[in-house]
C-alpha cells in the first residue's frame, strides 16, 4: 500500500501578524512547526503501514525550509518526503494548493491512499484534503476518527460529526482527513531523527509535476481574501463547580492532577 500524507508548515506562535496589503500571514522570521493535525495523519499512515505493509510518503508545499516538517514525518515513520517549492506556487489558495498536491500525487504514481490532517491551524479552512479528492476524482471521508478494515481495494472508516459518527466504506484510491481522536502520535526518537537527517528530500517545481501555470499561484486561485484579523487572545476560563463539597473537591483535585499541579 502506498500512502501519501500531506503535511504543512504553520506558524508556531500565537502572535502571527497579517500583511495589510496581501491579507496573508507574515511567515518570515517567525517560529514554524508542523501543523498539529498532520501529526495524527502521519501516525495513521504509519500504523496502516505497520499493519499491512507498504510505503508512507510525506508531501508538502511551501518554502525550502518546509523540508523540516518532512523530516519530522520521516522521524516518526514515513519512508521519504517530497517538497513542492517554486515561486510559481506563491499566493495559491486552497484550490490551487490542492491542485498542485494532486498533480504531485499523480506524479508519485500508484498511490492508494492520501491522508491529511482535518485542517491547518493557520488557515483553518479544512478545504485542501477535499480539494485533493476533487482534483483526483477520488472518494473521500473527512473528519475520520478511526480507520477500520483496510486492504488493497477498500478502507472502512468512522467519520465523526456532531451527533456521533458514520461508518463509511470507500474504494481505493481515496482521500481521508483525520481528527485528533484517531490516535496518539508517537514521540519522535533520536534514532528516527538521525535517519531523517540523512535523507535527501527531493524538491519538485511546478514544471516537474506538469502543473498548468494558470491553475497555480494567484492566477489559479479563485479566492480573494477581503479582510483578515488576528484571532482574539484566549482569555482565562472560569469554571463553576456546583456539586456537593465532596464532588467539588474531587473534581478540583482531578483537574489539578491533570495539569500536574499536585
Amino acid at each position, binding site marked *: 500500500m502506498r500512502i501519501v500524507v500531506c503535511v504543512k508548515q504553520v506558524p508556531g506562535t500565537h502572535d502571527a501578524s497579517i500583511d495589510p496589503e496581501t491579507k496573508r500571514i507574515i511567515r518570515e522570521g517567525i517560529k514554524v512547526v508542523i501543523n498539529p493535525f498532520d*501529526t495524527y495523519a502521519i501516525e495513521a499512515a504509519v500504523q496502516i503501514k505497520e499493519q499491512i505493509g507498504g510505503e508512507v510518503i510525506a508531501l508538502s508545499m511551501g518554502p525550502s525550509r518546509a523540508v*523540516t516538517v518532512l523530516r519530522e514525518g520521516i522521524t516518526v515513520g514515513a519512508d521519504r518526503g517530497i517538497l513542492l517549492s517554486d515561486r510559481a506556487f506563491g499566493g495559491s489558495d486552497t484550490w490551487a494548493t490542492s491542485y498542485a498536491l494532486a498533480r504531485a500525487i499523480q506524479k508519485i504514481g500508484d498511490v492508494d491512499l492520501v491522508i491529511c490532517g482535518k485542517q491547518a491551524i493557520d488557515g483553518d479552512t479544512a478545504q485542501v484534503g477535499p480539494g485533493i479528492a476533487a482534483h483526483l476524482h477520488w472518494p473521500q471521508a473527512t473528519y475520520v476518527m478511526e480507520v477500520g478494515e483496510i486492504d488493497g481495494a477498500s478502507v472502512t472508516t468512522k467519520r465523526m460529526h456532531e451527533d456521533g459518527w458514520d461508518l463509511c466504506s470507500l474504494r481505493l484510491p481515496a482521500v481521508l482527513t483525520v481528527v485528533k481522536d484517531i490516535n496518539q502520535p508517537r*514521540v519522535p526518537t*533520536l534514532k528516527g531523527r*538521525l535517519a531523517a537527517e540523512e535523507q535527501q528530500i527531493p524538491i519538485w517545481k511546478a514544471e516537474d509535476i506538469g502543473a498548468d501555470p494558470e491553475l497555480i499561484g494567484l492566477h489559479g486561485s479563485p479566492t480573494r481574501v477581503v479582510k483578515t484579523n488576528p484571532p482574539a487572545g484566549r482569555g482565562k476560563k472560569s469554571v463553576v463547580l456546583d456539586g456537593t463539597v465532596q464532588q467539588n473537591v474531587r473534581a478540583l483535585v482531578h483537574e489539578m492532577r491533570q495539569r*500536574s499541579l499536585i
Partner: protein
Amino acid sequence: MNQHHLTSAYHVEILPPKQETEKLYEDLDRFAQKYKRVMESGYCACITDNAMGNLAFQGTEMIEELHLPALENQVMIHLNTFHTKDDLHRILDACRNSGIRQLLVITGDGSDRLPRLTPSDVGADGVEAVTSVELLRYIDRAYPGDFDLGVAFNPYEPEDHEFAKLDRKIAAGASFAITQPVIERHPVVDRLLAEYPDFPVVVEAWMSKKLSLLSEAVGYEIPQDAAYDPIENLKTLHRNYPRCEVYLSILGFKTQYDLLQHVRN
C-alpha cells in the same frame, strides 16, 4: 523504606537536545561533551525527561546512540508520567541493560504532544490520574531491586501536604529524595533531615544567577532583590547540609564547572 546510599559528590543536571532543534549535530556534540566531562569527574549525570514540557530526546537513547559510557552510580535518568506504557518499558529496559540504577521519578509537566500513562497502564485503577506515586509503585513491582528510585521534594509547597506526599512516595518505593533548589537554607529541608535521618536527601543548588527563572521553576515568587552568587550559595549549602549531596541545576559548564572541585575545600 528501601535503603540506598548515593555516592557521587555532585549530581549534575544535563538537558538533552530539544526535538525541535535545527542544530541537531551541534547539540548532540555539546551534550556528549558535557556528559563525558561529568563521567570523568566522577560525578553523576542527571538527564531530564522533557523538562518543563519541552519535547526533548530521551536520556537512554542519547546514551545508546552516542555510545556514551554509563558508569556505575554515575547516571541518573529522570522519568515522568508522560509516556506510553511501551515507551516507559523501553526506557526502563534500556536503563537496566545499561546498568543505570538511579531513576528520579516525577509526575512531570507534560505537553499536548505527549501521551500520559493511564491508571490501568500501571495497575492503579483506583485513581483518576497517574502521579509519581503510582509510577514509583509500578516500577518497584515490575522491576524489583533493579533501580534506586528517587523522588522530588518541594519545600515551597504547603509543608504538611508535602510531607504526607513524601510518606506516600516512600511507601511506594522511594529510596532517596532531591529537593527543589534551596537558597542557603530552608526550614522545611531542615525538618526533612531531622525527621527522616536515614533517608538520603540531595539538596538542589540553583546555579544560574537569574533567580527569576527559579521562581518560574518552583512556581513561587522568590525575592529577587538580593544579588545572587550561585557558587557562594553552593558553599553555604555544603556548610548547612554537610550530610547531603548536591544536585546542580543549570550549571554553567564553561564558567562554573572547573570551580566545583574547589568549592568543598
